[in-house]
């Protein structure tokens, strides 16, 4: 009895143990829960595109911004290196299963690692590190355009483009120039940064008050 009391006293007076290197079951559950929320939120926003063509044009920026809310909330629960990388890997795997190209999926997983390293630089407690981490991870929305940089001819030689006719392909080839695509990448980065700011403000406004952040 006295031994157990002493042990309990020692345990309660000891400093909180720093998190170990391996991800715990709670970490894995957090990754799974927030990855599902991230995917469902993105899918729900994509479905809004059915309402009208005007909304369809707005879908990608909206997806970037809405994805920031679960991502920023997820970062408030991360303590170990590897959780954000795992988040990127499972998101990439689901996109791969949903028909994304292997290259795009690999880049999304790599962006997860980059985001993880940024968060670690901020010791997983820095608001700005979290915002920059989401800016990096949000670049995953640019991955469908990467083949245009790598092998432009092969991209336009696909049956989808061929079926649109030579004139259409020529017009698209002239339109989707490297400066335009670079501008698109910058726009996605800006939306990612704005999403990080909005996500951070949403945490403060709603989730911190409710005790969820």
């Amino acid at each position, binding site marked *: 009895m006295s031994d157990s009391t002493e042990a309990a006293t020692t345990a309660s007076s000891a400093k909180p143990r720093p998190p170990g290197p391996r991800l715990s079951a709670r970490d894995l559950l957090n990754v799974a829960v927030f990855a599902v929320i991230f995917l469902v939120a993105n899918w729900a926003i994509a479905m809004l595109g059915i309402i009208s063509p005007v909304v369809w044009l707005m879908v990608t920026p909206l997806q970037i911004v809405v994805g920031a809310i679960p991502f920023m909330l997820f970062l408030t629960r991360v303590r170990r290196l590897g959780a954000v990388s795992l988040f990127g890997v499972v998101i990439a795997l*689901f996109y791969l299963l949903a028909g994304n190209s292997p290259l795009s999926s690999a880049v999304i997983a790599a962006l997860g690692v980059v985001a993880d390293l940024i968060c670690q630089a901020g010791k997983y407690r820095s608001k700005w590190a979290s915002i920059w981490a989401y800016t990096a991870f949000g670049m995953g929305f640019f991955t469908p355009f990467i083949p245009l940089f790598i092998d432009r001819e092969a991209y336009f030689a696909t049956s989808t483009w061929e079926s649109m006719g030579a004139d259409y392909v020529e017009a698209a080839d002239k339109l989707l120039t490297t400066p335009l695509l670079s501008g698109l990448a910058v726009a996605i980065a800006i939306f990612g940064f704005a999403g990080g700011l909005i996500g951070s403000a949403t945490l403060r406004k709603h989730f911190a008050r409710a005790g969820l952040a």
Partner: protein
Amino acid sequence: MPAQRVDPPAGRADRGGGALRRHARLDPRAKILLVVIVSLAVMSPDGLIFTPAALALGVGLALVESAWRRAAALAGLGGVMWIGGWLAPLWLPGPLVLVTALACQFSIRFVASVGVAAHLVATTSPTGMSAALRAVHAPRAIAVTLAVMLRFFPVVAGEAAAVVDAMRLGGLARAGGLGRHPIRALERFAVPMVAASLRASEDLSASAILRGLGSRRRPTAMTPPRFGPADLAAGLVLAALAVLSLELRPLT
């Protein structure tokens, strides 16, 4: 002691029952492989050749598991996208129709691959998925996370649908409102959806940890994954559909 094969209790993996469905049940590893092959095929540069076959496969799998609504939705969506992507530009030439046609031609591939992936999600229990991933020696972190994700998908999708329904009832899900106040509209959707999902996840997480999820010890499975005649039949159907797609290439 080797784990004995025991028939699973009536539950998610066995819902609906029926002799045909019991015999047509695929091994989770075969289902994962099927989804990966179909996704890679339809998203390849010449993926449109395989898209009708992938759509037919998705509809066929939905029919085998008696998911009538999914079968009808897949067939309907495929039909609408075929009309929008190929017939509409012939009837109504114009820039907007052409952009819509391009979007339909791109989206029909996603519909096809998501149709086959939906079979995996709907018919695989988290424990079955976990056992299958262990059997292929997937890293513990990925195996546990994917199994839990499979469990959470219906919960979070249900919460998202409830929030969208509530927004519709309140007149907040209109295109005009979204265009005028996108941030406010997003906030109204995302905040309740995330909060409700997190509340549901707390209970499920506690339950999962109590059941030993994420434990360092290798758990035994009540129904160890095993390949059977259904997997062979699925492989043959897949091969036949691939050959048929290549033969009918001039038509597609």
